């Protein structure tokens, strides 16, 4: 039986993953900001076979609450087999260009808050000597694109942090997986002019994520074709890249 901590448990991708674990009878510690949505998610997972599900309301932007959450999770489950960090927002790049405070707030929620949580969780996992920390970053972190570079910068910070953390925790038997979804049809992306053929349902990538966690993949693009797309985009030289509107 898996013991799973999910931060951002009401997000569509997290929910889709959690349902797969629930079918296996997992135990959950669910963290999200909106207590009503959290309660509905909890009830759904219990109905779908979760053995236990504890909910914990927390705003990830409130850094001072992180340590207490991790401690309560430890008390509730003793050991964490999987910690999935899935919270985040999709800020408007244009709005962030005009408003420093907004830009920094968005960076905090997508970047710094994850670093804070990972730092606290790393200590817990170090004492366990087992388990997997799974972090949802984004393909957007692979390159600073003019349309979305504030979000991309935060996700790049998370990915780089994960890389270092992975190498550190590898030595104590803990795995860190960096999950980079492409375009996913979720409430977060609703209304965006995304290219329809590249958009997938959360359920489609959830299977890949759950499998990636089991296989201890290091960096997981979801769906897999994004690995090829991002490889090409990463190879575009600066003198061309700066002329694009990607």
């Amino acid at each position, binding site marked *: 039986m898996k013991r799973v901590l999910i931060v951002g448990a009401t997000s569509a991708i997290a929910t889709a993953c959690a349902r797969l674990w629930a079918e296996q009878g997992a135990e959950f510690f669910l963290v999200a900001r909106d207590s009503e949505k959290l309660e*509905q998610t909890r009830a759904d997972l219990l*109905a*779908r076979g979760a053995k236990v599900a504890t909910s914990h309301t927390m705003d990830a932007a409130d850094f001072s609450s992180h340590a207490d959450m991790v401690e309560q999770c430890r008390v509730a489950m003793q050991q964490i087999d999987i910690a999935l960090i899935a919270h985040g927002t999709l800020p408007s790049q244009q709005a962030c260009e005009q408003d420093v405070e907004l830009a920094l707030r968005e960076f905090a929620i997508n970047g710094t808050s994850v670093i804070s949580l990972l730092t606290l969780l790393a200590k817990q996992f170090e004492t366990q000597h087992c388990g997997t920390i799974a972090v949802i970053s984004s393909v957007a972190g692979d390159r600073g694109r003019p349309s979305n570079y504030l979000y991309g910068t935060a996700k790049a910070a998370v990915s780089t942090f994960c890389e270092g953390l992975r190498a550190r925790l590898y030595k104590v038997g803990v795995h860190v997986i960096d999950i980079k979804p492409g375009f996913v049809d979720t409430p977060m992306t609703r*209304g965006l002019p995304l290219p329809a053929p590249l958009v997938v349902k959360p359920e489609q990538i959830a299977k890949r994520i759950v499998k990636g966690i089991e296989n201890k993949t290091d960096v997981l693009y979801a769906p897999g074709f994004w690995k090829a797309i991002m490889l090409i985009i990463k190879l575009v030289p600066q003198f061309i890249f700066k002329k694009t509107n990607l």
Partner: protein
Amino acid sequence: MSDPLYSWGRFPYAPQTAHACSWRSELPGLLTELAEAHGSTLPYGNGRSYGDSCLASSSQVLHMRSLDRFIHVDWQQGIVLAEAGVTLAEILAMAIPNGWFLCVTPGTQFATLGGAIANDVHGKNHHVRGTFGNHVRRFGLLRHEQGMLTCSPTENTDLYAATIGGLGLTGIIAWSEIQLMPIRSSQIDSSVVRFSNLAEFFTLSAELDPQHEYSVAWIDCLAKGAHAGRGVFIVGDHAPYGSLEVDARSKLQVPLTPPVSLINNLSLRAFNEAYWRSHPAQRTFKRSSYDAFFYPLDRLLYWNRIYGRKGFQQYQCVIPDATAQAATEELLRVIAESGQGSFLAVLKRCGDIASPGLMSFPLPGTSLALDFPQKASLAALFTRLDAIVLEAGGRLYPAKDAHMTGIDFRQAYPAWEQLEALRDPSLMSRFWNRVIT
């Protein structure tokens, strides 16, 4: 970003803009917003209604599919409480391992819970269990003016009756609680026997229906002369022993919509002949998985695409017992004569269990369903068929319909005025707009 939504038959061609709802708490705001911006809207589940009953008159639908959470399950009593966007497949996936099954299932497991109520769907066991609505304990209905109401046989009874089979017009079904039935195995013990004409079908139905939970027949609607009315009668029951396994068959998919229909007279004749011949003349017994028995077409995802860009129409009517045999013979004669036909025309005797729904389709009698590739000549054929159905005192199924006239509809469903009186003014479908005016 979201692709437009269509009805299953893709006729009439009316792309719908989807406004997705992910949380129950978002529903009131979204309903108000859509009503104010576009005049009216309509809840849309998983797009399994064939005609225009799932299309909003404003072409702006409230997409309910993301409301797919279970709220509470009780495996002691077999009671499931879930949001309306949950599909029947998702309910079965959880219920079967716990020894429960849907009391009533239509021919696809991809319909949503809300859609099953709004169309008061029925299945191969109508003669013993009635319609889906017979097993709905209660549901939450969001009305623009009144907010969320709980409807059950004892609370808000008028809305309970009007919403079952109410085509999504009385309010938004946000959640529902249904009763399941216990099973010992997910396999079906079935048997098939051929019949060579309609008279034999009615004899078999009278003999076998009372003995079996499930009963349905396929009929070769292209056969003429000596072969007219030939078909295959299929009965089944939940096996008394065996395993409780959820459908895990690999699904095939029609990858794209061809420019023209792949269903034509030649392919149909060949298919129908082969299907007829594949069944031995003697009654044969076999055990099959529930999904192969109930949902053979679900294995081919997007099978509606094989009808090409023009789409198709399903014609489904029910004829009262007294006139069923003569009228069905006449319908088949006219269809065979027209040379336009369908794979797997389905014939089913409905029983006399009354639905709690005001506008439920089935009545004690025989239901006939056929699919036709869309073409201009269908209109004339349907006019002839409609006259036969009306003359025999029968009616058409709104969930499948894209053609019936307002006059025929209002005569066949006199309760329409009660539904109209209880309709939420912020909801309007293309179907309703067509038949009440």
